[in-house]
């Protein structure tokens, strides 16, 4: 995995976060308590001189790991986050894409509407998935959260998409350029707190975190942030190999994203 110039990535992300906050009236960010969205929050603290000016939303289906909830409470207090916990229903029969594709976006739609958010910061990265690599830094979604990926707006020279339709919003992707190893190198450099589930226990660790039903750990002896950076320098295993929905039917990710999945 290629380690990029972290300072350049940091400067660009700070620029995009400030741009989002100045361009839109009512911004919110999604926080899953995973490494990427937590890194995004660390960058936002830098962008806004220590205090994050927008609310952070956790779409909570009640089946995240206990460690994840503990981490949420600790960091929300430490960083004085304006945390919105939106409870999402979990139906016993829906797992994988059926769950992530419907229940969570439905809850998000409700929160967005209730609060009138016109921009949503989402911490996806280009290297995670072929479909995510096709995203813009700022990408409009219609009121039904649909992504018109066949006709995305031009994005050049720091001219980003504005909100287009009534009821729609713009997804903001400040971490699009970062790779997995960049994230961990930055966590190491900045001593960003992370969910303990990322570290190896009994020969396994979580490399990508979803909820209890759909996430499995991968073989690893990495017990610290340093170990993880070293592991990623040589690994040939895909980051999302422990996420069940990525392995379902063809083009699941494309379908999910076009319907509003994060």
């Amino acid at each position, binding site marked *: 995995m290629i380690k990029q110039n972290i300072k350049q990535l940091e400067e660009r992300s700070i*620029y995009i976060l400030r741009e989002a906050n100045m361009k839109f009236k009512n911004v919110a960010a999604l926080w899953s308590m995973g490494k990427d969205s937590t890194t995004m929050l660390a960058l936002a603290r830098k962008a806004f001189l220590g205090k994050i000016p927008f609310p952070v939303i956790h779409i909570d289906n009640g089946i995240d790991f206990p460690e994840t909830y503990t981490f949420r409470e600790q960091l929300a207090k430490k960083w004085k986050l304006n945390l919105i916990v939106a409870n999402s229903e979990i139906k016993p029969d829906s797992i994988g894409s059926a769950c992530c594709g419907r229940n969570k976006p439905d809850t998000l739609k409700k929160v967005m509407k209730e609060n009138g958010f016109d921009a949503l910061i989402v911490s996806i990265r280009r290297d995670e998935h072929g479909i995510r690599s096709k995203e813009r830094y700022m990408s409009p979604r219609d009121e039904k959260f649909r992504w018109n990926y066949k006709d995305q707006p031009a994005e050049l020279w720091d001219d980003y998409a504005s909100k287009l339709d009534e009821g729609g919003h713009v997804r903001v992707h400040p971490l699009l350029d970062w790779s997995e190893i960049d994230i961990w190198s930055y966590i190491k450099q900045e001593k960003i707190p992370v969910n303990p589930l990322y570290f190896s226990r009994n020969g396994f660790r979580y490399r990508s975190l979803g909820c209890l039903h759909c996430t499995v750990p991968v073989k690893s002896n990495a017990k610290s942030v340093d170990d993880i950076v070293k592991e990623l320098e040589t690994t040939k295993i895909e980051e999302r190999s422990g996420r069940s929905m990525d392995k379902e039917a063809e083009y699941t990710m494309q379908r999910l994203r076009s319907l509003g999945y994060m």
Partner: protein
Amino acid sequence: MVEVRSITMLGHKDHGKSTLIGSILMLTNSVTNVRINEAKKYSKKLHRDFEPAFILDSFHEEREGGLTIDITRAEILYNKVAFSLIDVPGHEELIKNMISGASYANTALLLVSAKKDEGIRGQTKRHLFIAKMMGIDYLVVAVNKMDTVEYSKKAFDSIMDELTEFIMKIGFDKRNVSFVPISAYKGDNILKKSRDMPWYRGKPLLEAIYENSGKNASKDDSALRIVLQGVLNGRKNMVAGRIVRGHIKVGEKGTCIIPLDINVTVKSIEAGGRRVRSAHVGDSVALELNRNVNKDPRGAILCGEAYCPIARKSIRARVFVIGKLDGKLSIRFNGIEVGCNSIKINSQIDTTTGETIGSKNIKVLNAVDAEIVLESKIPAESFTETRELGRFTLYSGKEFSGIGIIG
């Protein structure tokens, strides 16, 4: 940590841009087996031989339709440099996506197919024209599909000769251009020299890209330009922006904000979340000023008084036309949108030939030289002086209608 150089692909549809990136990813071991196997699986499903392009083309419309719809990037490591290869669509109707991709690069890799009935096309030249216009000065031309013409030197030479003439005509420096005969599909002359083309005496493709990229000089020592995004955290003496040229030190005298026409002194600088004594090109800074800024500074420039851009309403620009040039026109310039009072077109250029043609009937995908009068002043400079202050996007209502380079 390594240096990253962004390279944009260029070229007519089906001349092999995505296939080449797929091949490069595999030859340099830059892609996981999962991704390769997934591409293999879908190639098989569509009853095709393995398509390396599927590693990049992830939408099902792209795979089934055999075209790239939108841009994506792939990173490879070569000679300790990370090359970010930006794949772009070759289709005419997707040119706004191609432009979006090319805007992030300073070097281009053009694909021209040597296959019978393919060769140099209008779109090949148009992509070159756009790239040069957008400030890309370094170019590698890969003459592709050499395996389909029995690796013929003659086929390669004829493409090289015809294209060299056009490349010179639109303003490239011949020393910054190199030609490499390749087969993206077979892997010839990509990482290593091909045994099938002993007549080729140049470097293999990746070496040619390495030698012909990343040469843009540092702008740290030139005159200061900070593009302002706005006031930060509602504090009127605190502005945020990005340094696009030069550097700034705390307490430096003689700085001003154009077009607000106020003089300021920077009392403190924050960059990367830290208090710093000075900040440099590329930094996103928060600047505490000695006074309040009462008008919105978004899109304004903080610079030295001695050498600063002049705020003006009237600009001369070359515009690459993507949509209509009538209706309610406006330009977007460093985060602000400014309406156009008038646009006067002086001449039109056919971007597939580089020739100036009559300006009566303006065609989409051509370029025009125009005089635009704006509703309010912007701190513009010529593109050659400061790139970030010499370019804009043009809209007709909400419709994207072109990009402009200020002369």
